């Protein structure tokens, strides 16, 4: 007998958490002198009100799907990969190198090559923290944080040295060749005479993100590897008994996680209207991935929903701060509240709901 039905666990609890996070956010808005209802309306309009903003929301959501999946895969192995930021940066480096130095004939090939390189670089960047976690028990949280700082050092070094185009002042690579520029969704919609996504950079990598969702879903619940990842995550001792190599699975789970984070860079470099790699290529998406994974209950469907929500929040928040004097960091505050309520205060929300279900369930059983 479960304490409560599955739908309550996967839907009701997160929704209640979200409402609580929203209530506290409303208080913050009031504290800085902004009508929360107005703010919400502004954010909603800013997120989906125009075709441009809708497109931007989807563009950010694409980023967050990748980083959310990355965090989730690691979470299934009970590992907290907080290094998404660094892995995204390295992923960008990988993508930039293959598209800048190889003349790809068509964007499809460039996409495959870029995504592969991005995933590879992202995975390599987590390899050492993963190895240290697996082999020496060095806490992945701290090592990946350190690797985030170092990633930014590596990237800046590359962008201001080896990859710097002559005469360019911006810390960025040259603009990628046209063949490596991914078609935007609006280009595709344009074929049907629509202007659904405006000038937004949302592009075909959103399909890669959705494919990655399916891939992660199959991986986690339908492959031996996923089975082993989950087993290790739930009980290290039992995994040992079953002959599941904690070292190997930890490594593999984190490499996949890093690869997914790295792949985000495809969207952010090859997909944007000016395709190039800039110095802050991740834009905080690595961290937002944590909130997305927590809210999405580490399930791809949940992650897609959460990513859309955070995409809207990110885009709407930017519009809000453009229209008012509220700094855009309000988005970080909301994000923190979502992490707090869906992640750390889960029990606070869950326990009363559980009690309700037990009481309700009991009377039902008694009635039978």
């Amino acid at each position, binding site marked *: 007998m479960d304490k409560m039905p599955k739908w309550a666990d996967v839907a009701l609890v997160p929704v209640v958490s979200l409402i609580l996070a929203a209530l506290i956010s409303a208080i913050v808005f009031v504290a800085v002198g902004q009508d929360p209802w107005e703010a919400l309306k502004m954010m909603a309009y800013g997120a989906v009100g125009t075709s441009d903003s809708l497109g931007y929301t989807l563009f950010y959501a694409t980023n967050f799907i990748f980083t959310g999946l990355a965090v989730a895969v690691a979470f299934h192995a009970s590992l907290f990969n907080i290094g998404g930021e660094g892995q995204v940066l390295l992923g960008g480096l990988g993508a930039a190198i293959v598209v800048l130095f190889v003349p790809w004939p068509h964007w499809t090939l460039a996409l495959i090559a870029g995504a592969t390189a991005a995933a590879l670089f992202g995975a390599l960047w987590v390899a*050492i923290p993963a190895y240290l976690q697996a082999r020496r028990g060095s806490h992945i949280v701290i090592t990946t944080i350190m690797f985030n700082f170092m990633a930014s050092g590596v990237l800046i*070094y590359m962008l201001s040295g080896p990859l710097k185009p002559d005469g360019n002042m911006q810390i960025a690579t040259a603009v990628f060749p046209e063949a490596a520029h991914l078609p935007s969704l609006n280009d595709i919609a344009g074929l049907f005479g629509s202007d659904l996504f405006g000038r937004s950079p949302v592009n075909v990598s959103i399909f890669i993100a959705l494919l990655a969702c399916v891939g992660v879903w199959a991986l986690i619940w339908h492959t031996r590897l996923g089975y082993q990842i989950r087993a290790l995550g739930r009980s290290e001792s039992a995994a040992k008994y079953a002959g599941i190599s904690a070292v190997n699975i930890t490594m593999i789970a984190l490499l996949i996680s890093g690869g997914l984070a790295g792949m985000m860079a495809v969207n952010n470099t090859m997909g944007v209207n000016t395709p190039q790699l800039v110095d802050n290529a991740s834009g905080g998406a690595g961290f937002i991935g944590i909130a997305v994974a927590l809210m999405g209950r580490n399930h791809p469907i949940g992650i897609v929903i959460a990513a859309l929500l955070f995409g809207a929040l990110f885009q709407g928040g930017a519009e809000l701060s453009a229209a008012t004097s509220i*700094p855009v960091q*309000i988005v970080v505050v909301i994000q923190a509240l979502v992490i707090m309520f869906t992640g*750390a205060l889960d029990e606070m929300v869950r326990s009363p709901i559980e009690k309700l279900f037990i009481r309700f369930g009991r009377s039902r059983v008694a009635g039978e």
Partner: protein
Amino acid sequence: MDFFTIVQLGDASVRMAIPLLLACLAGLFSERAGIFDIGLEGKMLAAAFVSAAVSYTSGSVWVGLLAGIGISVVLSIIHGIASITFRGNQLISGVAINFFAAGLTVVIAQGWFAQGGRTPSLPSEARFNGLDFPGALSRMRDKMQASPGMQFYSEFVSGHSILVYLGLLTVPLSWWILYRTRFGLRLRAVGEAPEAVDTAGISVVRLRFSAVIICGILCGIAGAYLSTAVQAGFTKDMTANRGFIALAALIFAKWRPWYALGACLLFGLFFAIDIRFSNIQLQVIWIMVLLIGCAAALTIYAVKREKIDVIVLGGLSLVLTAVALTAWFGTASADGIGIFTALWETVKIPSQLIQSLPYLFVVIVLAGFVGKAIPPRAGGQPYVKER
């Protein structure tokens, strides 16, 4: 390197070490009680903001310090509610607190002072200024001319803000509390075996809350130190990851106060070196020796072990070797000289590398090459009596 440079390096190390030390001891109290806290960063940041803002508005730095401690304690209590009362995931709660502080400080600072998320610069009377000991020289230029003893006295001993001396005093105090008082015994016990504490008739919840509150107080002082002693005001993200470095120092220190002092001074030294010697030149030959030496050592270590070690460490060795060779041939071709002459050429170490050194060092420390650190046994786990 002359004597005064060494004194200065020591002086800067201490100055850089103090916020680390306070945060590290904060983490020590919390983790010794079984509550992991990666929210040190956020608490310091919040305290830095509030103490600067309140110092500015009230004109009294002490009121500011108290307010900073206050906000940090509030965040600690939130962490406590999440991880003690509701037995939530301590890492996640810490991450949330970091974000919360990073965002809210800017939002509120903007709403309050409208200066783009910073506080106005604090006037001297609203800051912790350096204490000049009797007879000590205060100006750098005077010190440079003084005798070595005077230099040491004036630069290293004197001239720090009161929080520095306070921070250093916290070390013996923490040691004394932990090992010489009833509270310390219980605190250490609750991080090792909360059920033992519980059955001994002591409230685990109260004990752990006291620990996180102490953690909050120390983080509060650390934050206030940054914005009212080192700096004259708050700027966004001014803690610059010190909270995370403090955690690494805590592991390095094996959760012991005196070791924590050592670890933080070492990290402080790293920062001081980074600041003072960002322009380091090395002969190519030394780069080769260093990198290829590391690569060789890693390879030797790996071959005796399992496949995974060979793959990862072997890969790392290859990367190091490749970097070394690139530096060598790169120098040769850039200067248009023979590859053997290039070995004696001096090149500048990329500043990005120098700046990454403290982080790299943290990773090396965590890799356990400096000895194994065993965390408090009940650390990170909520105390659950009834499943």
